[in-house]
């Protein structure tokens, strides 16, 4: 379609999670003109700040860094909101890296928020296998960090937004200093700013490590991802639109998308980065009249879904699949069937991330797969 013309190939990416932003990045770098459409918050906007998955190549590493994720060569320990010490490859840089703190005493700030049981968490961390092996201790320390009564109950996200105000970061630093000037390091709840980098600022002000634990769904980590994604896409010159895609049709000549507002869009290639069931990229339906029973993509496309070894074509139960038999885990195993480069069986269609069947549901997997799919899409669009 674009052969022999000076105009760059056009790639549309559907989905604004890690896979989508990676596909857009790779397609732009491969010379395509890219539009990214996304409907609402997906798993990436709800994630906890931890990035697991396969080792990354140089390009993926660069993108991860741009998205605020620190990736290390070896797994390193971080603390989760539920009292577990986990080893991770990548983490939102606000999460406290515990590796250099092995053998020390880490202060857990007890700020009196309802969602943060510092004393019991400190005990849980201290009794973890990692802390016992490295003789690391976690101690809850009372900190006067709340300025208003309501701050006790507002969500971690809302409290995090308050720390986007610089004076507030200074006030918190002072409160921490007052509470325990000798603490070797501070572990705080998941609310160290959304737009700001409050964690490194605090670390600089107190000249010791300061960081947070993993976020709850809808917390600061996902919100930071969304801000950084928008920034990366802007710099790349990607057209970013909030829109629900209702259908994608493709042929060897190109693809056509239909949007929820009734408008249409043409592209040389399309990358589906719709996310899984958690994101609303794959739906569970029960509309006998429309023939939609069981799992379906959030948009209509000539792309079949697969669960384990089965193709999910026509249904055999008006109620959809049996989760008693398949287990609720089926909700994470279902998806489209793509090859390693993200190619689907339909021409000019590619997929990556949580919407692909049987792949690990991790950030780094989504990132790597997104890059491959973006590259492949741009290649096919350019006449491959």
């Amino acid at each position, binding site marked *: 379609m674009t052969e022999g013309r000076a105009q760059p190939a056009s790639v549309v990416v559907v989905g604004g999670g890690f896979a989508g932003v990676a596909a857009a990045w790779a397609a732009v770098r491969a010379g395509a003109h890219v539009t990214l459409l996304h409907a609402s918050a997906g798993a990436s906007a709800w994630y*906890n700040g931890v990035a*697991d998955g396969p080792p990354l190549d140089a390009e993926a590493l660069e993108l991860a860094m741009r998205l605020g994720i620190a990736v290390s060569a070896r797994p390193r320990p971080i603390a989760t909101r539920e009292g577990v010490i986990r080893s991770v490859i990548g983490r939102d840089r606000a999460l406290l890296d515990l590796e250099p703190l092995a053998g020390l005493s880490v202060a857990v700030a007890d700020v009196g928020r*309802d969602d943060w049981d510092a004393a*019991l968490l400190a005990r849980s961390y201290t009794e973890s*296998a990692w802390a016992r092996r490295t003789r690391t201790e976690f101690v809850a320390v009372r900190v006067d960090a709340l300025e208003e009564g309501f701050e006790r109950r507002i969500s971690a996200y809302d409290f995090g937004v308050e720390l986007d105000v610089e004076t507030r970061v200074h006030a918190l630093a002072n409160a921490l200093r007052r509470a325990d000037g000798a603490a070797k390091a501070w572990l705080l709840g998941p609310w160290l700013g959304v737009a700001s980098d409050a964690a490194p600022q605090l670390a600089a002000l107190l000249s010791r490590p300061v960081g947070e634990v993993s976020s709850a769904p809808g917390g600061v980590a996902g919100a930071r991802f969304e801000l950084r994604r928008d920034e990366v896409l802007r710099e790349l010159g990607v057209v970013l639109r909030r829109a629900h895609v209702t259908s994608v049709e493709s042929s060897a000549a190109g693809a056509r998308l239909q949007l929820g507002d009734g408008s249409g869009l043409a592209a040389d290639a399309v990358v589906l980065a719709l996310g899984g069931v958690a994101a609303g990229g794959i739906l569970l339906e029960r509309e006998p009249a429309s023939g939609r029973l069981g799992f379906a993509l959030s948009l209509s496309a000539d792309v079949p879904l697969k669960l384990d070894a089965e193709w999910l074509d026509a249904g055999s139960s008006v109620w959809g699949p049996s989760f008693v038999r398949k287990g609720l885990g089926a909700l994470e195993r279902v998806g489209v069937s793509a090859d390693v480069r993200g190619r689907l069986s339909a021409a000019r269609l590619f997929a990556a991330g949580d919407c692909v069947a049987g792949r690990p549901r991790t950030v780094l997997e989504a990132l790597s797969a997104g890059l491959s799919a973006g590259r492949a899409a741009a290649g096919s669009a350019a006449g491959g």
Partner: protein
Amino acid sequence: MQALPAPGARPPPELDPNGRLPDVDVVIIGGGVNGTGVLRDLSLRGIKAALFERNDIAFGASGNSSGMIHGGPRYLTADPDVTYSSCLDSGHIQRIAPHLLFRIPFLMPVFRGNGVAARVALTAYDAFFSLYDRYQPLKRGKPHVRLTGDEIATLEPGLVGGVHGGVTFDEWGIDGARLCIANVSDARERGGQARTHTTVTQILRRDDGSAYGISYRDRLTGEVGRMTSRLVVNATGAWAPITTGLGGLLPDAARIRPGKGVHVFLDRRLTNYAIITSAVDGRQVFLMPWQNMSVLGTTDDDYYGDLDEVVASEDEVRYLFQAVEGVFPGIRSARAIGTWGGVRPTLWGFGVNEDALSREHQVVDHAAHGADGLYSMIGGKLASYRLFSEEMSDVVAARLDVRVACRTHVSPLPGGEQSVDPMRLVLDGGMEAVTAARLEYRHGGRSLRVLERMQRAPSEAAVVCTCEPVTEAEIRYVVDTELAVNVDDVSRRTRLGLGACGGMRCAARCGRIVADMTGRSPDDGRRMALQFLEGSARRRSAITGPEQARQEALGLAVIRAELGVAASSAGDFEND
């Protein structure tokens, strides 16, 4: 029906076979509403009793019923005496535990269809419930009302069109688990003993066949022991035939017909009335507003599976949905968030279909089977537990020659002694209004004790489960005073983790609190949280539909991410 011993019946031996005084007067096996009811009744009469519960209080039918203290309208024509005594006892329960009962107005719509048939049906219902009205004052129920189709369309807009008319009638709802807990708590305050998670493994019998106690095993610690007594009461509901087997009796010594019933619960109250309609096989099913949610129920099928693992099947769930869809189409897009299931210990009657079986109760004296001193309580209902317990306790008292009359109908249950205005909890405790109202529902006057905890330790005012809601103080209170030892137990007592998020936000924290209070490690706390999450996920798998699927997928991600279960390719320090 076996003959019951007359007052002054031959007393059981004073000593056990080794010539020692028994540990207690009576051992009660089973911590459902009947076992706990007897424990309380005996304790009020000064009879020393100890109860053993294999799982948790209210683990069986009592914590998994439809939660109604009904007046038994179904017996009205065949056996009005049952209706009379049911209504009377409903009134008693309301007096001793006013905080636990809530009014449920029922609506029986009649659809137009064949005009004449509808008019006849409506007139018949009207006449029937006029009769039932006579008993309503016994339980402070309101008289029935006959409504026109238009009135019903206004009062219950979610119903499909074509309603010819209908009648309403009044019943009371209750949290069955709270009722059992209230009975145990009262008994323990009066010297009764109760051990949960402790199964009876054997009923001890003398050479002459008479029962003199039990052997038990603590299922959490593995500890085994014996407790001797003068009499043994088997109050194990659907487990009853298994239990008599532990004394070497044949299963038909305590014969029941086990009838499984399941319920689906849905987020929020969807209707103003409990709506009664017919399933495809003509059975009546209901969609009812219950506490802060809606309950769809129930089924009745013979059940011979594992009684510790009663889980709703997809067939049962779909049967219920299909029954209600026709009259209340909104149910299709409602969000089902859980199920519960129990097994009715129905009196045995062969060849009779399940629904026609009586829900009546009976005390079986196993002297007839050569086991003097052993009694089984068979059948019964939540609604008649007090009466049934009184009958059982009368038998025990007669045999032990204790001449103290039953007081369970006048002596308030814990929380019922004093009423508390939830507003006071808001003003004095800084609780949010919903938190206060729910707390007061569960604990009545005793909610002041939870409030005291918060005032002593303000951090305990933290809301741990935001769906219900449940505070840290309440969790600690039920661990301290209500025999809760794990997250499941706390959930049964407080409804923690049963809301739309399925415990995703609160189970792990609850586990940390319980572990901390019971001297166990944070790892143990996490394990009990996972046990709760897995159990409730198993109960939800039969209902996972369009509205809940996304939440389930999110829950899986959170559990993996935060608890490090099935850790990803990066590995996990906890596992290495």
